[in-house]
């Protein structure tokens, strides 16, 4: 009797170890499994169906940094369209200058609102470029996750918005955003950010910054439309996102990013 009991315990311990080992192996497989590819993601997006017709889109944004001339038209248009307070920007343009001394000069005087004055750099400028920045409208949004009152959220179309009526202005999201695209509006004391001009895109227009870009460096479109320009670019060109290591899964893609870009 006693021996049988001991044997059973032994058996159950073996069982336990077996189960634990299986579980661990399973977890390992899950972590090693490749993340869903872009093709799978696009397929999922195409399958999605949002109920009111005007919602049945899934937006993405592409910035072609090789075309940007840093004229600041987008920054001015965004300010006019969205009436953002002075000194705060929903979109801005950064200038990068890399010299033979190894320095990387990054500046954005007034967000690029008045274009860029020539800048003296030490040594010879080897390469330079402009990088327009805006909210990346991530899928793994660090900013909406920290909102204590659900004022910030992702719409079914993949746009991240802030509900000013609900926002209590705590500023957690401003700190959580790795791309520094949020600010507290000094007039309303609530969080504010790029909405991809939600009032325009829901009417079938492009965001203001895209509308005024003279070199077509900014491209906006619907991923659900098979022959849209963003789909074509994402399918056929080499694109990158900002800070991919943070795994925020941005839906704002960049062409021609340099490793110096932060």
């Amino acid at each position, binding site marked *: 009797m006693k021996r049988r009991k001991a044997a059973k315990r032994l058996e159950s311990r073996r069982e336990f170890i077996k189960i634990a080992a299986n579980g661990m192996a399973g977890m390992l497989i899950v972590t090693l499994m490749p993340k869903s590819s872009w093709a799978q993601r696009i397929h999922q997006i195409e399958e999605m169906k949002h109920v009111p017709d*005007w*919602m049945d889109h899934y937006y993405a944004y592409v910035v072609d940094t*090789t*075309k*940007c*001339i*840093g*004229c*600041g*038209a987008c920054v001015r*248009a965004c300010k*006019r*369209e969205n009436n953002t307070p002075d000194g705060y920007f929903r979109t801005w343009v950064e*200038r*990068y*200058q890399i010299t033979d001394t190894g320095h990387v000069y990054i500046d954005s005087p007034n967000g690029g609102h*008045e*274009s*860029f004055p*020539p800048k003296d750099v030490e040594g010879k*400028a080897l390469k*330079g*470029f*402009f990088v327009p920045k805006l909210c990346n409208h991530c899928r793994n949004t660090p900013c909406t996750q920290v909102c204590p009152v*659900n*004022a910030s*959220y*992702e*719409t*079914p179309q993949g746009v991240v*918005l802030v*509900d000013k*009526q*609900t926002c209590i202005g705590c500023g957690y999201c401003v700190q959580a955003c790795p791309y520094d695209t949020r600010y507290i509006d000094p007039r309303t004391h609530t969080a504010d950010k790029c*909405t991809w001009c*939600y*009032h*325009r895109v*829901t*009417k079938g*227009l*492009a965001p*203001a910054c895209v*509308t*005024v*870009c*003279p*070199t*077509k460096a900014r491209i906006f479109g619907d991923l659900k439309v098979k022959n849209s320009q963003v789909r074509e670019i994402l399918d056929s060109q080499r694109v990158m996102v900002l800070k991919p290591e943070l795994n925020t899964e941005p839906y704002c893609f960049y062409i021609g990013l340099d490793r110096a870009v932060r």
Partner: protein
Amino acid sequence: MSKYSHVVNVAVLVGLAFLGFQVFQAIFQPDSFGQYGRYRGDHLVEASSLSVLHRGDDYCLDCHDAEWDMADAKHATVPCENCHFLPGPHAIPVDKANSVDKAKAAGGKYVKIEIMPIDRTAQPCLNCHTFLPSRPVKFPQVKDGAKHIKDGWKKAMGEVKINSPCSRCHNSHFPKAYAKGVV
């Protein structure tokens, strides 16, 4: 003292907390919360009903295609609103205006109700065409405005002051078509 009084106590407390939360939610949660997700559904409609200020080139070209048939011009990609911007509409159809004879109609179809600003200074041109090392090399840029104007002046027959605006020689819409007298 019942054997289960401790359970009852806890159950009552939990029940009260639950009820309190329900009351709190009923009072403070907006009606449309949860309509599409864990946020106020009405905000989607509010956010999409703001007024549109930038209308894009297609809007302008509805009325202005005669001035701006520039498929082959170098400024073909430069949107009108870089140099002309007005938040509201600046013309309306003639039959909607109340004093038609006073207003000047373009092609007889529209009356202007507000002047569209024209930025004649060099500033818009310089925003885009000042030489900057960060600009794409192929983009046409002016390294030294004064020198450029002097050189342009050499080619020009007419008299051009050094501080004359770019539009003295360049047509803003067709920048390759120089003013009369300029080669």
